[in-house]
C-alpha cells in the first residue's frame, strides 16, 4: 500500500486550522511541501488516514503533535546573521528610539532567548560594533538565555562550523574570528566576554525574575512551538521584563496576533516589530 493520500479539501481544512493556530498560511503552490510533511508525520504517528491524524492533531490535550508538525513545517536552523533584517532594524531604528527616552547612565539591555548555541547574540554584538554609531555613548548589556545547558556551554565556548558562519561577510569573519586547525571558527573573546549566558525556563517565574528593564527582546522561533496558554503566559512575562517603549522581535513566521494584545504593532523600514506601550 502506498502512503495515505491527502485530498484537496483535506489540504484546505488543514491549511485553515494551521493558519489560525500559527499565522502561517500555505498557498496552493506549497501543496507538495505541506503534503510531504503531513505524510511524514502521519507515518511517524501511525495514522492510517488524514482524518484520524487531523483529529489527533486537533484534540490532543498535550499539543505535542502540533509542536512536532510545526517543527517539520518550519526550518529551524541557527546561523550567524539569520533573518538579518531584524538586526538592521535594531541598529537603524530600534536603539535610537530606545536611547531617546532613556535616562542618562541607564544601560541599554538586550535579551536573546532562546539563544541556542550563540549565533544570535553574537550576531547582535557584531551588528552593534559595526553599525550602531552611538555605541560609544551608551552602556549596552546583552543577556542570552536558553533552557538547555548543553547549548549554553557551546555558546560560551564560541566555536562554530563553516556552515554556521557562511552568511558573514568575509571581512567580518576575518575581523571577529580565528580559524582553527580543524576548519572551525572561534569567536573573538572580546565578543564572547560581553554577553551574559544564563539558563532560563521562560515559564518559571524564579528564572525570569531577574530580568528587568529590557529594552529589546529577541525571541525568535520559540513561541510558535508553545501551546496557546504557554505562549500567552510567555508574552506576559516578556511584557513584565521589558521597559516601557521596549521592543520585541519574533521569528519571521511568528505573529503577536496569535499570542497577546499587550503590544503595539510598529512598522519600521526594515521590519515589523512589537512594542510595549510607553
Amino acid at each position: 500500500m502506498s502512503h495515505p493520500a491527502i485530498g484537496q479539501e483535506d489540504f484546505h481544512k488543514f491549511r485553515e486550522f494551521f493558519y489560525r493556530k500559527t499565522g502561517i498560511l500555505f498557498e496552493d503552490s506549497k501543496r507538495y511541501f505541506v503534503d510531504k510533511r503531513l505524510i511524514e508525520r502521519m507515518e511517524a504517528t501511525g495514522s492510517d488516514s488524514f482524518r484520524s491524524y487531523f483529529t489527533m492533531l486537533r484534540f490532543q490535550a498535550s499539543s505535542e503533535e502540533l509542536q512536532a508538525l510545526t517543527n517539520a513545517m518550519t526550518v529551524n536552523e541557527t546561523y550567524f546573521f539569520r533573518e538579518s533584517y531584524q538586526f538592521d532594524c535594531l541598529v537603524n531604528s530600534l536603539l535610537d528610539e530606545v536611547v531617546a527616552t532613556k535616562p542618562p547612565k541607564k544601560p541599554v539591555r538586550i535579551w536573546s532567548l532562546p539563544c541556542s548555541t550563540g549565533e544570535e547574540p553574537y550576531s547582535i554584538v557584531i551588528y552593534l560594533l559595526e553599525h550602531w554609531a552611538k555605541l560609544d555613548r551608551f552602556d549596552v548589556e546583552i543577556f542570552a538565555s536558553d533552557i538547555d545547558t548543553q547549548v549554553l556551554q557551546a555558546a560560551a565556548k564560541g566555536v562554530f562550523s563553516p556552515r554556521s558562519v557562511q552568511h558573514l561577510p568575509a571581512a567580518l569573519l576575518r575581523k571577529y574570528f580565528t580559524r582553527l586547525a580543524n576548519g572551525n571558527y572561534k569567536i573573538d573573546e572580546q565578543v564572547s566576554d560581553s554577553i551574559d549566558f544564563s539558563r532560563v525556563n521562560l515559564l518559571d517565574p524564579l528564572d525570569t525574575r531577574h530580568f528587568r528593564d529590557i529594552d529589546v527582546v529577541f525571541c525568535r522561533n520559540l513561541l510558535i512551538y508553545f501551546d496557546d496558554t504557554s505562549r500567552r503566559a510567555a508574552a506576559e512575562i516578556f511584557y513584565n521584563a521589558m521597559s516601557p517603549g521596549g521592543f520585541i522581535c519574533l521569528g519571521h513566521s511568528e505573529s503577536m496576533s496569535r499570542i497577546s494584545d499587550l503590544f503595539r504593532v510598529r512598522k519600521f523600514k526594515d521590519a515589523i516589530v512589537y512594542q510595549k506601550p510607553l
Partner: protein
Amino acid sequence: MKSILIIDDASTVRLYHRSLLEEAGFHVDEAVNGIEGVEKALSRTYDLFVVDVNMPKMDGYAFLREIRRRKEIHQSPAVMVSTEAEEKDRQRAFAAGANFYLVKPTKPNELLEVAALMTGGRA
C-alpha cells in the same frame, strides 16, 4: 485592481466574502483578528476594510480606532459587518471609524454593492 482586506475570525465567512469579492474582480487579503489586520494594513495599501465585530485579541471596534489614529495607514473606508442589527451598535461602529454597516449573515448583493460604492466603482 482594487484591494480589500477582510478581517474576520470565522474562516467560512472569510472564504465566502473572498469568493464573492474575487469574482467581482477585487484582490483580497485576510486577517483573523484586529492585530493581524493592523499588521497587514501597515504592510500595504487597501482600498477597503471589511471588518467583523467580535474577534479574539483585538475586536473590530479596537481595530477601527487603531487604524484611524495611525497616520502611516492609508485611511480607506471600512465596512463593519456585525451580527447586531440595533441602532446603538450601528452608532458604535461609526464612532469607532466605520463608514458603512452591514448586518450578518451578509447577502451577496449587499456586500458587492457596498464594495463597489466604497472603492469608487467596480474593481
